[in-house]
């Protein structure tokens, strides 16, 4: 039997506010609002209380919960009406227990004169209570507002709790960048999405590659280059690895974790899906993973035929220099770049041939963590390159800002996810 109690031996969460009985959560919050109103009267500042969404954060432990709670400071002026920070203590030896804390968070918006307040309820569900967490948090959700669930860490082996929380939510946010086993988790998510047609799911890593998608798309907005999109036959993507990882990638037993190619894979999956490409039928020879180099290569073809008329692909040829032999596909490879967070995209090149004219579209970060150089190279027609501001790393709070503005399913992301899983299929 679950024991609803305020008595949580040994657990002190000063950052979570006041420890209260779950039944007293609303009353305590109401009291805190009254106190806040009094403060407003005496301090003359303006209190802003938004009611746009419920934000549920599901953390696997106290440490990650505290980190997420601290991050809310950067989300202070967005849309949050109420945060429910759910900590799942799934230790089988833990006593079944639910503990709740409440607080009002208050952050300046423009200056200290205008402050944004939102409610934060922290729920620690231990033992068997963790399995019923979706039911436990229901009374704490504000009515009529969408519920965004931010799931920290990998998906659990048993998906019951996750599924229950997903059912409750309007949108689920994950971050494949923080997955310990990204390939396994991505496959699990893809399967889950195919089985749960009602779920809206997004990935902060998908947000990380948005600026790169914008830049790739922008090449083909120009009428003179639009027709080159149909002629793209080779795509190369490079992602950053730290210098020390060079040796790791050779020796590591978990290559993908060490190399963290998720962003590159998502970009490749997006292009494969959007360009309507499929893996070549070559008896398993269309996919090659080079553990030594940490590179992937796929031979691909259009639904209607090969990427180039004369293309009979071999992986070896594909991984050679651009355009040689006129074969096509996608290559992902690591690039040693010490100033970038591992996994960051640092290079994209699309090579196209139309009417025997080749055009090469390149986005290259080089050594600059804040800018990329975009260029289009065509024989006898060199265009001025352009320097564009694209920060290498984006804070989770910045990405969450974007995610919290989106409602409903992101079919493009889902298609991309399935494409990635297809690329990674054995």
């Amino acid at each position, binding site marked *: 039997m679950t024991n609803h109690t305020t008595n949580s031996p040994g657990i002190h969460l000063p950052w979570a506010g006041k420890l209260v009985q779950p039944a007293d959560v609303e009353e305590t919050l109401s009291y805190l609002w009254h106190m806040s109103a009094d403060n407003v009267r005496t301090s003359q500042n303006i209190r802003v209380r938004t009611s746009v969404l419920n934000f549920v954060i599901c953390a696997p432990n106290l440490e990650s919960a505290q980190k997420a709670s601290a991050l809310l400071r950067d989300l202070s002026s967005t849309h949050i009406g109420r945060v429910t920070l759910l900590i799942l203590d799934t230790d089988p030896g833990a006593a079944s227990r639910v503990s709740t804390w409440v607080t009002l968070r208050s952050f300046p918006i423009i200056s200290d004169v205008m402050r944004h307040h939102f409610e934060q309820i922290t729920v620690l569900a231990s033992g068997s209570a963790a399995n019923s967490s979706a039911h436990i948090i229901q009374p704490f959700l504000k009515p009529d507002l969408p519920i965004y669930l931010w799931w920290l860490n990998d998906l659990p082996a048993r998906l019951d709790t996750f599924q229950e929380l997903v059912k409750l939510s309007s949108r689920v946010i994950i971050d494949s960048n923080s997955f310990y086993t990204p390939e396994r988790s991505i496959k699990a998510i893809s399967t889950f999405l195919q089985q749960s047609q009602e779920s809206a799911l997004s990935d902060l890593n998908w947000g990380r590659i948005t600026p790169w998608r914008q830049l790739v*798309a922008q090449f*083909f*907005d*120009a009428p003179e280059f639009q027709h080159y*999109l149909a002629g793209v036959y080779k795509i190369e993507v490079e992602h950053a690895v730290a210098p020390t990882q060079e040796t790791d990638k050779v020796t590591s037993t978990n290559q993908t974790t060490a190399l963290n190619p998720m962003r590159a894979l998502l970009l490749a999956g997006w292009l494969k899906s959007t360009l309507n490409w499929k893996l070549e039928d070559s008896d398993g020879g269309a996919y090659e993973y080079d553990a030594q180099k940490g590179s992937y290569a796929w031979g691909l073809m259009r639904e209607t035929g090969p990427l180039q008329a004369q293309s009979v692909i071999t992986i070896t040829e594909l991984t050679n220099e651009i355009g040689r032999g006129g074969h096509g596909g996608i290559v992902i490879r690591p690039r040693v770049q010490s100033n970038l967070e591992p996994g960051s995209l640092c290079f994209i090149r699309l090579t196209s041939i139309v009417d025997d004219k080749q055009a090469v579209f390149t986005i290259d970060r080089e050594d600059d963590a804040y800018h990329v150089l975009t260029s289009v190279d065509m024989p006898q027609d060199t265009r*001025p*390159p*352009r*320097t564009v501001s694209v920060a290498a790393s984006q804070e989770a709070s910045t990405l969450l800002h974007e995610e919290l*503005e989106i409602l409903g399913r992101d079919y493009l992301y889902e298609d991309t996810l399935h494409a990635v899983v297809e690329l990674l299929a054995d």
Partner: protein
Amino acid sequence: MPQRNVVEAPNPLREGLRIKQSPEPCIMVIFGATGDLTHRKLLPALYNLALEHPLPAGFSVVAFARRPYTDESFRQQALDSINEFSRQKPVNPQVWESFASGIYYLQSNFHDAAGYEKLNILLNKLDQERGTGGNRIFYLSTPPSQYPDIIQNLGTAGLSRNRKGWTRTIIEKPFGHDLTSARELNRQVGKVFREEQIYRIDHYLGKETVQNILVFRLANGIFEPVWNRRYVDNIQITVAENIGIEGRSAYYEESGAIRDMVQNHMLQLLTLVAMEPPIAFDANSVRDEKVKVLHALQPLMGREVLNNTIRAQYGSGWVGGHQVVGYMEEPGVSLESATETYVALKLFVDNWRWAGVPFYLRTGKHLPKRVTEIAIQFKSAPLMLFQRSEASGQLEQNVLTLRIQPDEGISLKFGAKVPGTDMQIRAVNMDFFYGSSFVREQPEAYERLLLDCMLGDSTLFTRRDEVEAQWTFVQGILDEWKNEPQSTIHTYESGTWGPQAADEFAWRNGYRWRRP
């Protein structure tokens, strides 16, 4: 806001991206490039577009002006301006370097045909070097007196059309000085450019909150049913400035509040509030409905002008803690000046939706604070159950306020019971602030408008018939004021909400100006 009326590029990679299309590479030629508008608004807006990368590679600026600058010295001036006025500071050196490499300066007088020949050669050269494909925007950022010369010279030099790409022109306000001059300007521009090439800019339409008026009305089910004469008692539109004429007496003496604010910005706000839902959200459908409102404005003629307008000049007073002089004491202002710095109007929209509902408009300089808002005041409840209560005198009508600037947002005033054993009712405000619900930084109006022009979307620009309909309404007022003695111009103390006569003007009909 309305969808773009351009054919979307067949670019499947754009699916799911917030920016649906980036413009084609083009050259923007800015006439009057050394002026205030260019440095305060246009260059910072273009830089911001480059920084957030909707601008395509190859985008170029040709600054066309009389002063002796070189490419390099103008780029330095531009950098200084962007550092001072851009919403994104400090300037990003790498992005600036890339952006600045596409800025060129061409020194010429506006009336000198040779300058346009040089311009033609430069544009063709840039097309080759920067891949701009013959796409051009000619931005007229000069005093209006220069417009005819520039337009005519562009036509003579064959620059108004080219076979390779598109050509558009953006014309700044004021578009004409009165109805006759507006028509004449339209005629002159129309001789050189087709209407679909002409983008008459009113930067108010680029403001997010102005665009939100239509979203608020037409994307929500609960407002439109009460948005009519059955429920609305009156509508007040206020555009208040706390600044004076800021040394611009030469301009303001010729303009006055009615030309500076009412003819363009305020009538635009009125049309957005009063228009019928368009059949589609494209440029012409939206503008068709706005023009219908302008045509439905009950014309003010003869004595009606005096009965339905108040004009005034600011006297001395205190604004923002500073003592200020009166308008007549401002340098450059004529001692016999009849220029109004404040105007209040009552007007009616004669159609089924709004018949009998007064629209009160007021604008002025040296008012207590800077604020632009539209207040829709609703009729009282049909039966007052609480008349015997002590609070009955405090019951106020519901007011829905759309705040355009500052503190952009929406508020609804309604009555609520004061907690207690008695029945006391107090008016409370339910507020929505943009700044607290959406953290995304709002782009400057010029960023949106310049981008729209590059994309060929004229929804937020004023059409020929629209500008003429605005002037037609205002001309009746101007004509009557011209015939009236100067004694009909009131004076108000700076730092107040206008002359006493304006209050009496509203009271005569049982209304009261809001205190924004």
